[in-house]
């Protein structure tokens, strides 16, 4: 009787340990509270290079519910993840830009450094400046880089934390294309 109880306790402890090891603490797999919910709107000033084309303020509300949107949070101090994905985002924008709006949200950064980053990668999709990182919190962001796919009806469909590769980005875009 005692042996059986001992084995059961050992098995229970083993099962808890196994479960604990299975639970991955990868940020990309953490749940997004926003999935399926309307994407929060924001109005921010674009970085200087984008003001001529996009004006003094980019209001996401003008585009939400009208077309799919890919929202990417980044910062120039986010090395190497943001540097790895920047060319991928630019290439995707050049390919799908006529059907999907890409918006970069430069988070908790300095304008000069952000501009340097934009020039380095020749980013041509609009990038707005969020020195406080207020929008990131509105989207439940853990840390840069993070990418969100918003459907044409204005809902958050997918969230990717960490550097995004071309395959993951394409899958994300195909999910929101009408």
């Amino acid at each position, binding site marked *: 009787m005692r042996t059986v109880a001992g084995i059961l306790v050992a098995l229970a402890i083993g099962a808890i340990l196994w479960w604990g090891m299975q639970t991955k603490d990868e940020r990309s797999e953490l749940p997004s509270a926003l999935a399926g919910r309307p994407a929060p709107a924001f109005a921010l000033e674009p970085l200087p290079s984008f003001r001529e084309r996009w004006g003094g303020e980019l209001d996401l509300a003008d585009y939400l519910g009208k077309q799919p949107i890919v929202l990417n949070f980044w910062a120039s101090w986010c090395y190497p993840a943001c540097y790895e994905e920047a060319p991928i985002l630019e290439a995707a924008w050049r390919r799908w830009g006529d059907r999907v709006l890409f918006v970069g949200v430069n988070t*908790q950064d300095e304008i000069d450094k952000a501009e340097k980053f934009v020039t380095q990668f020749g980013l041509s999709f609009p990038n707005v400046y969020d020195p406080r990182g207020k929008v990131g919190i509105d989207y439940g962001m853990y840390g840069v880089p993070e990418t969100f796919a918003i459907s044409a009806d204005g809902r958050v469909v997918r969230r990717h934390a960490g550097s995004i590769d071309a395959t993951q980005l394409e899958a994300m875009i195909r999910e929101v294309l009408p």
Partner: protein
Amino acid sequence: MKRIAFAVALVFSLALAQTVGNEPPPDLSPQVFEIAKKLRCPVCRGESAAESSAGVTEEMRRQIAEMLAEGKSEDEIIQYFVDRYTEWILYEPPKRGLGLVVWLAPLIGLGLFGFGLYGYLKTASRRERALSGLEDVSEEELARALAELERDDTSEEQP
């Protein structure tokens, strides 16, 4: 005169230090930290939003201060973060569902430990009682038993 110049310079430098930038407001009320203590830092391990110096937690504290200034209650502010991050953002797991297991685990552990200790003490006291039974044997009887043993030994040595 020097003193006045120094005072003027000090006032100016302080005024410059107050310029609005990306820095958090320096005078956050203790209430802000009380609320931030109940929230997790999203990019740290085991740190609350009150202790962490990560950029995201600086903004969280700033938003808490702003919401307090708007007259929002603590529950409303915490709900604001839960709406965006799920209950994962709560520093202490909620006392229901899977969170309840986390809260009860130490009690269950303590119960199991108590049960094991009780079993061990019971066995130990039984053994002690069995051993203490020897005390009931009178010295006379003990001496006789020893003498008998000795006799057996000597008989074995001389076949």
